[in-house]
């Protein structure tokens, strides 16, 4: 029977990259905003009053005949960086702040409030950093697209390193991605959220979070 399922993998490694703990659970995480960011791609129609991760209502626009960043979850690590880049139409070069790091891709948090279809964000995001309670965000990678009839799959992955000097407890994770408002702005939307159960990441340890999306026909 055909279906798409998503498996959530959580693994903890010590500072020598030796596996300490690994668990896999079914992800039950795709929430309404997954369809809010996908809809403009399919329908080429605008949506209004869609709450972003800051709970601000945004317009999800279309820009006919152009690429749209909606659903883009691949991301550099860190918090935010500025890059020197050309605008998409090539007319000017300027500094831009790409949506990255803790604002895009796989995100982890510390709250275990139950998931609802209307969630706008993780309840309590763990920020990128080296201070107490923070984790260093690596890049979010998309890789491993493979097919073997009747299955196909790929993986979304991010590593988080704890150099805070103390334990950091992860209890939720999710996926953020941009939505385009058709006026040269993008905002961040939470398209997936899962409760992980408590995972204590001790200082110097690394947490690996993977979402594996699998089709079976």
């Amino acid at each position, binding site marked *: 029977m*055909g279906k798409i399922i998503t498996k959530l993998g959580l693994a903890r490694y010590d500072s020598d990259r030796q596996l300490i703990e690994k668990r896999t659970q079914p992800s039950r995480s795709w929430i*309404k905003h997954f369809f809010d960011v996908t809809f403009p791609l399919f329908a080429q129609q605008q949506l209004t009053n869609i709450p972003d991760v800051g709970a601000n209502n945004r317009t999800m626009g279309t820009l006919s*005949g152009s690429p749209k960043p909606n659903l*883009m*979850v691949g991301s550099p690590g860190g918090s935010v960086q500025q890059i020197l880049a050309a605008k998409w139409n090539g007319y000017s070069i300027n500094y831009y702040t790409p949506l990255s790091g803790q604002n895009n891709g796989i995100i982890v948090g510390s709250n275990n409030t139950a998931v609802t*279809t209307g969630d706008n964000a993780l309840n309590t995001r763990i920020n990128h950093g080296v201070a107490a309670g923070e984790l260093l965000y690596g890049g979010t990678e998309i890789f491993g697209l493979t097919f073997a009839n*009747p299955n196909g799959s790929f993986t979304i992955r991010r590593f988080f390193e704890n150099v805070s000097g103390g334990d950091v407890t992860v209890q939720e994770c999710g996926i953020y991605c941009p939505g385009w408002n058709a006026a040269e702005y993008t905002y961040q939307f939470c398209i997936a959220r899962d409760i992980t159960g408590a995972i204590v990441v001790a200082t110097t340890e690394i947490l690996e979070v993977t979402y594996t999306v699998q089709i079976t026909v």
Partner: protein
Amino acid sequence: MPRAQVGLNCQLKKVEPERIHSLLEPGELGAMLDLKVFDPKTGKITEQLSKKAESYVKQFLQMLFIKMGASVDVISMTDTGGVARNVSEASYPTSYTIFETNAAITDVNYGIIIGTGSTAPTINDNKIETLIAHATMNYSAVTFGAPAADNTTSQFTITRNFANVSGGAVTVNEFALYTRHWDGAFRYFCLIRDVIGGGIAVPNGQTLTVNYRLQAVL
């Protein structure tokens, strides 16, 4: 005579969000396929069924991969003509549009497509087996229902009507969702293909409405 009295009977009821019909399992990302045959002369629905769409195929996962990775790396995808095409999320105007399904009236190249083939779907299907032409079943424009959610299920809806103008009954066995992508010319790719055993009969003069409701269940 006692005076008439007007009173208020106050009742409080918790109104639950309207439940969205779904046959998907918890955690599943998928689609529902709804079919309705409608007689415009009588205004009556003559047949109606709803089932789980079984068959997202290879091209759907490839496009999701490209989109999520904003990949400028080229993925070779087989279009509905059986030709391998290089698809990526490269910059405009080289390559764009992923998942576009908003086909206009008469357009049988993308959007929801119907056919008469009955071969079971496989992940490698790149097209419908036997297309039913617009001259037989008039294809409407594709329309959309905005995203919605209840307590457990999120979805949006893609709809197309097919009016039987053939002069006889037509049995529709297969259903598909095609998308188009631009790489200097529009290329068309199959995202979903479903086959219904026994098909659904559409008498002459009646209209088949097909909904694909893309869903996720917590």
